[in-house]
């Protein structure tokens, strides 16, 4: 499973001459970082990292916020028609993005949001919060009633109960949601591909995917690109491994 990554890392530090002489399977003779540097400059990788981080970070926070508001009404407020509202959110999350992409593309052009990072942030905030609403609602549905009633008797209104009682107690679940929203948004491909056409707005995924499609790179640069694309994901993975596995189990069987 990790073998492909190792092979990529080996070849990302070879010089093109070494690659063509010894092929992809030999060990590198030395560390040769030109491929990485060339690729970084060619696609302005720092800017792509910044765009990805900005978009994914904003989506994670905004979607978690929206999920909390929705789930508060559904899980604790027990609004009427609850199962239908929940079903709606799940279906919205399962909808293939192909069924939204053209109207979103068209409408964003009409309102002047086309090729802005904001457009992608808005769309993914909504899509991710659909999943968040579903997961949080079932967690909040099991929230101990006495705690809420106690706060109410102390004179807290619904808004205060939400922020001072429900949100602090749900922090573990919210943490899982933030991590997942961030990584999912980071990895998204179709909508950013359609919406972010200018170089200054593209995400890491789109920049790499588009370059790959054009097949303009030599083998060492391809490996450099792959390595630079893998590294952020690998860091998230190391940092959030526990949260991730906990979250998957939670999402699947909750």
């Amino acid at each position: 499973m990790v073998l492909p990554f190792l092979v990529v890392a080996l070849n990302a530090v070879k010089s093109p001459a070494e690659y063509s002489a010894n092929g992809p399977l030999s060990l590198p003779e030395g560390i040769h970082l030109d491929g990485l540097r060339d690729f970084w400059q060619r696609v302005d990788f720092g800017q792509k990292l910044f765009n990805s981080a900005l978009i994914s970070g904003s989506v994670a926070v905004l979607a978690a916020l929206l999920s909390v508001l929705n789930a508060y009404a559904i899980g604790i407020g027990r609004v009427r028609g609850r199962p239908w509202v929940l079903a709606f959110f799940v279906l919205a999350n399962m909808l293939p993005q192909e069924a939204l992409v053209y109207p979103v593309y068209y409408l964003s052009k009409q309102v002047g949001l086309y090729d802005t990072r904001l457009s992608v942030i808005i769309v993914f905030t909504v899509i991710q919060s659909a999943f968040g609403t579903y997961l949080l609602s079932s967690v909040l549905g099991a929230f101990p009633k006495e705690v809420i009633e106690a706060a109410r008797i102390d004179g807290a209104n619904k808004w205060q109960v939400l922020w001072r009682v429900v949100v602090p107690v749900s922090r573990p679940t919210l943490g899982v949601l933030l991590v997942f929203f961030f990584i999912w948004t980071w990895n998204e491909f179709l909508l950013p591909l359609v919406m972010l056409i200018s170089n200054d707005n593209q995400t890491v995924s789109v920049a790499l995917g588009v370059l790959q499609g054009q097949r303009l790179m030599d083998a060492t640069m391809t490996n450099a690109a792959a390595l630079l694309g893998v590294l952020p994901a690998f860091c998230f993975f190391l940092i959030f491994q526990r949260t991730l596995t906990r979250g998957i189990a939670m999402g699947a069987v909750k």
Partner: protein
Amino acid sequence: MSTHSPGAPRLPGRSPHRREYPYALFLLPGALAFLAVIVVPFLMNTGISLTHWQGVGSPKWAGLDNYRALLDDSAFWESFRHSLAMVVAMAVLPTALGLVLAAALFDYIAKHIGSRTASVLRACFYLPQVLPIAVAGIVWSWILAPEGGALNEALNAVGLGSLRHDWLGDPDFALYSVMAVMVWVQLGFPLVVFMAGLQRADPSLHEAAELDGASWWRRFWHVTLPQIRPEISVVLLWCTIAALKVFGAVYVLTKGGPGGATNVPSYFSFQSFFEKTQVGYGSAVSTALTVIILALALVALRLQTRAEDQ
């Protein structure tokens, strides 16, 4: 929605929240956002599928023409058959392999070698799942490249040079190559879910079977499998839905080629929208896909609520 049940009498002077907003108000931001980003675009897409439209000028009403054309379009049916191949690669195989691996990690490696090794292995299998599919695509299209690709070079090195192939460029092989990559991408998800499922299962059953002398396969079949049946059906369905939606992998690995050999409906609709400017037709494809996916999602939801009740 009020804090008092409807029939209960209100005690005078004990109603500090009398003029408070109802809980439904908390749904308002979400509802508006969903209206703008999901509901309206989705209805527009369905509407566009009933027209002939190139994306500019005004759409011409077509009724069900696009759908009728779809039924006769062999390229569409081919893409749809590839969807079934993706279901095998992204749902059936990963679930089957994930089950065996989860059981092996859980009751062999964790017990005989150490739970630390088991969780490191689990992490390795899961890693491809956190990778942007575009990056996985770059990695694999280089490995599978005909000239200088790592796989062909490795075959050469071990004396199997006769098996060299243009893995992604040969119409007879491309679909299988994409399928193999998708198994690699997808395997970690069922594995993690099944291992979590096994943790909540009762270990005494397993030990009893082991004492009775049941072989590993018999225990796997008669003890492990029945215990995580809810997880299996949920994983199968979610993975099937993911398989029907697959886009990024096809875009980066093959762009649907060679000659449509790896095209899938989602890429087919993307092509219709942005390459062929047959927006009405593309909308019909994506609407058809949506109907299938939502039907499956409903089944998955039912299964999931049933699993919760157990």
